[in-house]
């Protein structure tokens, strides 16, 4: 099946058998093609003793730890074909992932994202309120995964307004006039989970300003680590937002995604489940032996995507823990697996003469 046909498949329409068959074919082909085109990937697969000539299924494909993208330039295209390089967020001193995109991969990422997000926002573009500061885009130093995320999702907005000013303070005047202009319309809200909590929710709470966002649909990502520290659960998060701006809890959608597989993100549905689309899958691995975990069993998250054509990132092992909650039977009606995330695995406390073990792996 051509990529074009794939991308025309409604994102949550395939049942497990159908999807499995299609993924097997597609990922087999993709694995062979990366093996041909990427020297490092070939070395990796040869070392693991994997035979690309067999009719393997996609859960048998060796998964690369995402960390490898921080250490190696993994590319399956010639340098002159690279049109864009994505990097992960990272604080100073930390190494960042580098993801090389060619025209095809980049355009497929966009198409895929449109398909997935449309299932939640509807088929057309709407006014967009960005729950962040415009400085994130303007300031090149701050520009990172956060900026890229905002830009990526901006294609769903007709008019755009930033809820925060350059100093990360609420820009109430801008919001008021923006919401007045678009009364009665669906408003697309976008931001990063912790930023929303810290700079939008908390500040609205003290300001006394209560914008009417009952027509709002929020998509947010970036992870829960900092909110777990503040003991805020996803339910608390939704309730709190509802209190300050009237957004309906069912219209608050978290997403799980990573720069290594941009486009094929996992969206949270109205029932609070993260969903795999037809473009991607999630497999849970037991840390003890990497065998596949049962439904309801916690393990390491492996992510699979059909999009990576220019770099061998189609089958990856993350450092997050998660659990499959079900497949094809979510009450929201979307097919595919739905799952839950517990966050990053703990760093090991290990013994030994050298004090530096932990820092080697940051």
């Amino acid at each position, binding site marked *: 099946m051509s990529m074009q046909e794939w991308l025309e498949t409604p994102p949550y329409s395939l049942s497990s058998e159908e999807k499995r068959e299609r993924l097997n074919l597609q990922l087999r082909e993709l694995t062979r093609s990366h093996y041909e085109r990427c020297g490092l990937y070939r070395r990796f697969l040869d070392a693991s*003793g994997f035979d690309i000539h067999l009719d393997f299924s996609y859960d048998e494909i060796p998964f690369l730890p995402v960390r*490898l993208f921080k250490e190696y330039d993994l590319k399956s295209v010639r340098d002159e074909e690279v049109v864009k390089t994505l990097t992960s967020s990272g604080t100073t001193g930390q190494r960042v992932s580098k993801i090389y995109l060619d025209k095809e991969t980049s355009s497929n990422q966009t198409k895929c994202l449109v398909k997935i997000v449309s299932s939640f926002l509807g088929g057309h573009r709407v006014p967009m309120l960005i729950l962040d500061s415009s400085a994130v885009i303007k300031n090149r130093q701050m520009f990172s995964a956060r900026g890229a995320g905002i830009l990526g999702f901006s294609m769903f907005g007709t008019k755009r307004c930033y809820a925060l000013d350059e100093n990360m303070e609420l820009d109430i005047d801008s919001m008021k006039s923006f919401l007045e202009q678009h009364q009665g319309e669906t408003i697309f809200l976008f931001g990063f989970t912790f930023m929303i909590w810290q700079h939008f929710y908390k500040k609205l709470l003290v300001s006394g300003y209560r914008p009417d966002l009952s027509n709002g649909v929020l998509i947010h990502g970036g992870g829960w680590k900092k909110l777990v520290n503040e003991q805020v659960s996803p339910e608390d998060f939704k309730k709190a937002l509802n209190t300050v701006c009237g957004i309906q809890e069912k219209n608050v959608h978290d997403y799980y995604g990573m720069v290594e597989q941009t486009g094929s993100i996992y969206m949270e549905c109205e029932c609070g489940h993260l969903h795999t689309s037809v473009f991607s899958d999630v497999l849970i691995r037991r840390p003890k*032996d*990497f065998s596949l975990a049962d439904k309801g069993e916690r393990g*390491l998250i492996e992510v699979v995507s059909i999009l990576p054509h220019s770099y061998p990132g189609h089958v990856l092992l993350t450092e997050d823990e998660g659990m499959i909650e079900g497949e094809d039977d979510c009450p929201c009606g979307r097919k595919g697996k739905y799952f839950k995330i517990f966050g990053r695995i703990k760093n*090991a406390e290990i013994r030994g*003469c050298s*004090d530096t073990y932990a820092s080697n*792996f940051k």
Partner: protein
Amino acid sequence: MIVQPADIRILYPKKIDWDAFFAKKATTPFDIFCTEMLEALSSSLLKDPQARQYPDVITFAFFCRKANIKKIQEQYEREEHRIGRGCLFHIAPSNVPINFAFSLVAGLLSGNNNIVRVSSKNFPQVEIIARHIQDLSSSHASTSRIVLVQYDRDNREATDFFSSHSDVRVIWGGDATITSIRRSPIPSRSFDVTFADRYSFATINADAVSEDAVGKLAEGFYNDTYLFDQNACSAPHLIVWTGDRKRIEQVRERFWNSLHELVAKKYEFQSVMAVDKLTAMYRQAAAMEIREERTKDNFIKRVMLSSLNDKIDEYRCACGYFSEYISEEDINEVVPIVNNKYQTMSYYGYEEDRLKSFVQENKMKGIDRIVPIGHTTDFSLIWDGYDLIRTLSRKIQIL
């Protein structure tokens, strides 16, 4: 009056007079008061039920027994006119609880006064030994040669202070710690004894491994590796097999199976280790020809080398990750890859003469210890190529 900087916790003694401590004279090595104190420490530790819960504390107590110290002392009998350097500042590693005590003993036996910085993590082993030293302080004056301190590694002022008073700094904890401690100056006449990051390997002569010896061999190997998360500098990362091909295959299979049983039973496996080892495998695959060995699970991860690579010491991982090499000839095959990072070669099945000629003929830049498998972590006063008694004392020339 000398006053210590802020934020230093003194575990021993209860009250310190720095002027008096820094003015204290050194002694000759194996000073009788010191050896008596160590003997007393040994027996009081061995009687303490709480101490008995910690095998490393017991190993330490055994090391300090009269008979053992006497045996070591005998090797230095003809040393005349030696005196300790004065004041030693020991920086113990953060993750091996008992190491500080061995470093301290080396300092005492060589005739010095000792300030020991213990790990900023609160290990019960440290508390126990400090308590026993405290108990001996009224009956043994040599305890006044000991100061145990604890402070945050970012406390530069504290390191500056102790460094400025030290005749020798003994720095454990590897390259990064050494670099960081060396930012604090020491007096011109002083020097550092450093224990840098090292690489270690094992070699097994399969022809010499009998059927019923495999279990014991695996147990010794477990203690060399998993007991300290394969992160002690003496822990092997590479295993070189020698002997008859067929025999090697038989022994290897039984050896790894026995080790697996031990690991499954005793080792606390953490999820992140699975990811670390897989990453290490691909990292190594990017750099050299390897083939992953099929194993049941992630408790032991092994790769087979098609040749010995001189960069092999850079491709390692903690917590049970091993490179294997099947030698075409014999142990001489490792000679070209040995650099000065190599510390311990542990072995099974070689005659002493063979090992001696291996060292003498090849004159390698590395390998400071050749010890039987199972004994790589045994402490000795000869460590990393240093004779600690001689290094930490002065020899006075009388003509």
